[in-house]
């Protein structure tokens, strides 16, 4: 086997390569769709999406808009951490979207209704989302209810609960919750000077470094601790975990609690910046949780990889907003970014494909030698 091939065989290289291939495929598929809708503007629309904030010639302005992108990257990263943490333990926590919604609900109500400081708001968001995860975990462990089913059900439950609760703190004339900036300044996440770095973008807060720190922590727990060893063993082989005396039932519940807490904290990291207000009439859970699935896979199910994949996905999503709306309908940006995100989920498939090609190549070579 030559050098080049053993290099391609490395798992890390394969993950990176398949992620990149998926990104290219996704961009290409998006381009094709744009071509079909209106061929004239397809190329420039694609450029708009990829450019995102780089479109601004002034570095200072671009930096400010880059700030906006990373403000929304932090919650996405938290959601993808939530997904991949559960996934490593063999659980598919699709309830992440509902846990995120529940976290948003508690964080905002604590901030606007109870006028509590940001750290209490964030803690409450964490706890509420963790409880939601615990319900799925309990049902899975003791009633053998698949976590995907209970997760989807709970998504709706938590959406309408949040809508109902937040109606009490909404603006009288609009369906949106009151702006934290006007109501309770102590509930805003601290900036620790980061806003200055991003050309006075007030939304850039400790959420961003905190999310990155948590990615590293998740990696450490999964790879370096006894706790992670047990959780992964349970995920890979529940029966073997039971056989060697691990508490596989409580491990399952604990995993979904932690996964939920990560998603809930993600919601707090976003809504406590005041960047966006909750719309109390919305009829679907925020897409953040679902995008977290794509980000987790695109990042090769690695906590550190998730940092970059979340940034990319958020970059594309933001970039979509710049597509020429006179030529394309207003939904186009969401459509294109979802196509790209959808194809980003194909990383595992790509990995399989690469390995198959390598094996076929080897077999051919083996024949000649």
């Amino acid at each position, binding site marked *: *086997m030559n050098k080049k091939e053993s290099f391609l065989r490395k798992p890390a290289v394969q993950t990176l390569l398949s992620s990149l291939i998926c990104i290219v495929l996704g961009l290409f598929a998006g381009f094709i769709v744009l071509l079909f809708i209106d061929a004239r503007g397809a190329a420039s629309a694609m450029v708009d999406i990829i450019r995102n904030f780089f479109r601004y010639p002034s570095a200072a302005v671009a930096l400010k808009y880059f700030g906006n992108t990373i403000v929304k990257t932090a919650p996405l990263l938290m959601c993808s951490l939530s997904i991949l943490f559960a996934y490593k333990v063999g659980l598919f926590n699709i309830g992440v979207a509902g846990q995120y919604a529940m976290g948003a609900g508690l964080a905002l109500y604590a901030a606007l209704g109870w006028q509590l400081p940001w750290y209490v708001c964030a803690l409450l968001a964490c706890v509420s989302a963790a409880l939601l995860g615990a319900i799925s975990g309990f049902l899975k462990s003791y009633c053998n209810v698949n976590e995907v089913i209970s997760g989807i059900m709970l998504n709706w439950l938590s959406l309408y609960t949040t809508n109902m609760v937040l109606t009490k703190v909404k603006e009288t004339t609009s369906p949106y919750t009151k702006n934290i900036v006007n109501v309770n300044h102590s509930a805003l996440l601290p900036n620790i000077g980061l806003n200055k770095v991003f050309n006075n973008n007030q939304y850039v807060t400790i959420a961003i470094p905190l999310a990155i720190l948590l990615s590293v922590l998740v990696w450490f727990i999964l790879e*370096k*601790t*006894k*706790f992670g*060893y*047990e959780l*992964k*063993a349970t995920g*890979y*082989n529940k*029966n*073997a*975990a*039971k*056989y*060697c*005396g*691990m508490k596989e039932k409580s491990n399952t519940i604990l995993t979904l609690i932690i996964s939920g807490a990560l998603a809930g904290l993600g919601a707090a990291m976003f809504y406590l910046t005041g960047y966006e207000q909750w719309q109390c009439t919305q009829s679907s859970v925020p897409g953040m949780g679902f995008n977290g699935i794509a980000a987790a896979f695109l990042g090769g199910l690695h906590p550190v990889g998730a940092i970059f994949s979340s940034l990319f996905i958020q970059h594309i999503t933001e970039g979509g907003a710049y597509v020429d709306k006179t030529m394309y309908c207003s939904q186009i940006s969401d459509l294109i970014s979802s196509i790209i995100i959808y194809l980003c989920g194909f990383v595992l498939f790509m990995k399989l494909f690469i390995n198959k090609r390598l094996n076929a190549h*080897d*077999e051919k*070579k*083996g*024949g000649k*030698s």
Partner: protein
Amino acid sequence: MENQYAIEMLGITKIFPGIIANDDITLQLKKGEIHALLGENGAGKSTLMSVLFGLYQPEKGIIKKDGRQVKIQNPNDANDLGIGMVHQHFKLVECFSVLDNIILGVEPVKNGFLQKKEAKEKILALSEKYGLKVDPDALIEDITVGMQQRTEILKMLYRDNEILIFDEPTAVLTPQEIEELMQIMRNLSAEGKSILFISHKLNEIMAVADRCTVLRKGKYIGTVNVADTTMPELSRMMVGRDVEFAVKKEDRTPGDVILDVKGLTVASKLHKNNAVKDVSFNVRSGEIVCIAGIDGNGQTELVYGLTGLEPVKAGTVIMKGKDITHASIRERSVNGMSHIPEDRHKHGLVLDYSLEDNMILQRYFEPEFTSKAGTLKRANIRSYAEKLIDQYDVRSGQGAITKARSMSGGNQQKAIIARELDKAPDLLIAVQPTRGLDVGAIEYIHKQLVAQRDAGHAVLLVSLELEEVMTVPDRILVMYEGEIVGELDPKKTNAEELGLYMSGAKNDFRKEAAV
């Protein structure tokens, strides 16, 4: 001149990266003969069969059918040539009837409607002709393993296959059923079918085969007439050295009772009925007690009850004088119970973990491997794993960091044995520890079991293999339908008597009918 060979595989060479799986192998199957294919695990039997079925294309060599060269690109080509196979693990649809399973894929259809009546007549005729007793309307899940196997054979015959391959067909059968199968094979060959019989059980090959081809480490060793050879010679060809068939062990007087089971009743996970019914026995230090019986007579559930994998319904389990009936699995383990599980993939290993991570599965929480802060001590884990790998000769591609999934079955089993024995258990529960392993590995594992016994530990062996039951233990307990029906001394009993107990024909402890 008429060609005397039904199928010929000439000079087959199949190379995988880094390994020559088949090196210039020749296999010639005469028309109407029973030809055994003998070899240890990893000798290249499966690869050779995969080439025959078109799953792999050989680098060199040709395949001839009736003297004519053929190209087999995929399993469909093999089917068209009349080659059929009974797999070791049956490929049957559990909730379908025997009839439905036989016609699956080749259903007789008229105007879009199934013609089951015709099919049934054909099946009954075949069943009559070859002495294959089946009930076409019974569901697979309701019939015995023996009948399931006959269904598989009928599947091949229904498709008018001329070349029948049996892949280790006797592993799941009772001695009586094995005898029946041998007769069926003789009938088939008398009717002109050519049979390829894959096995590593020498006595069966001696009993039924006409010729035998032996492979070793991917190489063709030779083809011999069974009538002209002996068992030791065949085993020498297969393993490359002399193998001790007899398990050597000195007489020993057992010591204290280590495991005492009283009135144990365990429910089956599948159907909630009691799979183990009021079972009592004990195991003393320095003895090997074997639970014998046909698969599915409650042995699995008995072990689940003893090890804590499933809760018990009634009765007590006492280990070293301590009641552990309701103790957790971890408590049992740290108190001196080791368990070599029946299914090494389901329970024994985390296949996606490395070998070293599997080696510490029972002790990862000990201070040697986990710091007070809860982080793993990787260096200690590595050196411990390497010590075990060395001591128990566990072979793998990359040593301690090899993924358990990529290791051979024999070495996976060795890894489990290393892990369980290194705990120096007072009680070792070994469930089918030699299942699917080759002669060399079996010999090794039997030696380890005897060493445990000689070191004064108690060993409870659960086995389906008749040879193992007769040679390894000091006492045999036979289980039938969830009850212990006999206690035998391996020195004083024989296979026939054992078979009678195993099939339920004899019962020393039959409970008096309730008055």
